[in-house]
């Protein structure tokens, strides 16, 4: 797809040029800056208001999740993955459970697969809502935050009723589900969809043609498809640059192949296109959930899995399309009850690497917009 191996804008040869020019200014943003969505420290090199380059300093939230994984059984490690991308805990759980299922060579029953899809897509909506609210807030629009949090509450209520938790849900188990859906689950999910559909229009009414929003996002943080691929960027950021690639279609997992949905893509790869792509993704998620609820089969919710899990020695890499991009797990088993090695391939970590490229030549205020549009969660960047 790309011909040259090197990125024209990335000056990889001289990463540390001495800052001797009197016009250059080096300033710190974060780690306690409210617009860095957690604890991200960015060292900016500026020429007046213009960004010449920047370096990210991360690790403030490092909790050693991968190390913990080596010291817990497969079942015990399951809730830990929720704490990585804590606004999309259900997606993290789905990726982990499916990877271990591959190691164990079991498959979740159809009903479990359907419920998994419903909850994961609800989670995608919730994650995008949180992104929209905070991103708009960073840029200066306060109202979307109230709107999205008001509506996100309805999703959290469904989670709370289903598994008792709102944020770090631990909704799935290896092999299927722990809990049968509660009475009225389908009806409540459908009610939510009816409630939510006009809300997306409401969000769009506030922003899509809003002059200030357009000025602040159009041609800001532009990244080409070629650069996205070279930097390993995935998710809505990649799609906004025009690459029609979504793991749900490219390498279907769970039972996504049974559902009809489109992959929205953008053209320019700027902040505005990424906004449009995520808005369109919410509509697609609504479509998927609707089909999944309508076709929810009866049957068992968990496959036959041993109480003490001892997958045969081997290794598996499996990834899913999390709201932020490709979330992969690489698990090595040595035949014991604990994983020998758990590696998490976090989308936020890899996507954040593109921040430098996307911010070059932009203004300081645009850095805020670009951090928001990358939709990073520092819990996942640092793990």
């Amino acid at each position, binding site marked *: *797809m*790309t011909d040259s*191996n*090197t*990125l024209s804008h*990335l000056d*990889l*040869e001289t*990463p*540390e040029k001495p800052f001797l020019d009197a016009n250059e200014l080096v300033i710190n943003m974060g780690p306690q800056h409210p617009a860095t969505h957690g604890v991200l420290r960015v060292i900016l090199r500026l020429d007046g208001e213009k960004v010449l380059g920047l370096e990210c300093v*991360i*690790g403030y939230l*490092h909790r*050693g999740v*991968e*190390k*913990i994984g*080596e*010291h817990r059984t497969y079942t015990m490690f399951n809730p830990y993955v929720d704490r990585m991308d804590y606004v999309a805990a259900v997606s993290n759980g789905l990726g982990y459970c499916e990877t271990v299922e*591959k*190691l164990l*060579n079991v498959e979740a029953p159809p009903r479990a697969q359907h419920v998994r899809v419903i909850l994961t897509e609800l989670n995608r909506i919730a994650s995008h809502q949180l992104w929209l609210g905070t991103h708009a807030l960073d840029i200066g629009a306060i109202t979307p935050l109230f709107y999205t949090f008001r509506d996100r509450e309805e999703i959290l209520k469904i989670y709370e009723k289903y598994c008792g938790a709102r944020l770090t849900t631990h909704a799935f188990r290896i092999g299927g589900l722990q809990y049968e859906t509660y009475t009225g689950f389908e009806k409540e999910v459908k009610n939510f969809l009816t409630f939510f559909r006009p809300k997306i229009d409401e969000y769009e009414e506030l922003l899509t043609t809003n002059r200030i929003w357009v000025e602040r996002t159009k041609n800001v943080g532009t990244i080409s498809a070629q*650069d996205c*691929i*070279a*930097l*390993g*960027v995935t998710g809505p950021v990649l799609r906004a640059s025009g*690459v029609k*690639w979504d793991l749900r279609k*490219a*390498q279907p997992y769970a039972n996504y192949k049974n559902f009809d949905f489109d992959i929205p893509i953008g053209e320019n790869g700027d902040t505005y296109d990424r906004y449009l792509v995520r808005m369109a993704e919410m509509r697609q998620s609504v479509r998927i959930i609707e089909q999944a609820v309508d076709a929810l089969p009866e049957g068992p919710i968990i496959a036959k899995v041993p109480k003490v899990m001892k997958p045969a020695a*081997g*290794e*598996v*890499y499996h*990834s899913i399309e999390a709201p932020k991009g*490709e979330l*992969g797990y*690489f698990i*090595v088993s040595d035949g014991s009850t604990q994983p*020998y*090695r758990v*590696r998490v*391939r976090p989308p936020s*970590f*890899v996507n*954040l*690497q593109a921040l430098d490229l996307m911010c070059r030549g932009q203004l300081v205020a645009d850095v805020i917009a670009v951090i928001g549009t990358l939709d990073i969660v520092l819990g996942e960047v*640092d*793990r």
Partner: protein
Amino acid sequence: MIAKLKGAYGSGIEPLSYAGQNYMVVDRSLIPEILQVLRNEEQFDYCVDITAVHYPARERQFEVVWVLYSYARNERIRVKTQIADGATVPSSVPIWAAANWLEREVYDMFGIKFDGHPDMKRILLPEGWKGHPLRKDYGILQQDNEWVQINLGIESGQ
């Protein structure tokens, strides 16, 4: 494709498969060439992940793993190589810009250095930290007590 590579490089490549996923164990000396061939001739244009696994009982203690994906072929492959403690691996930053932070993380967690990396330093742990936590001989409760005492002013170091 793997058969073609096997034909070209012979005993330096061992193609394997587990749970329907293909991977190959490649001799350390062939690594730069194989990665280059995979990127340029076999269209593996997306470097998904670079990581390592520590096997202290083995003579060549570390396994470095590249997970690669090709958009054109919609195919994933893993390349692995085994190296001894203290040995280095050539950096793949010139091949995939994405490798930059991934290699820094491997260095941070395992202490494996990548030759030719533009900025080989820790990424998640602070500069000056002693030890590499994902090595098997690094305890789960272990910390760099001295670092904690000096930088955080916590006397117990925990």
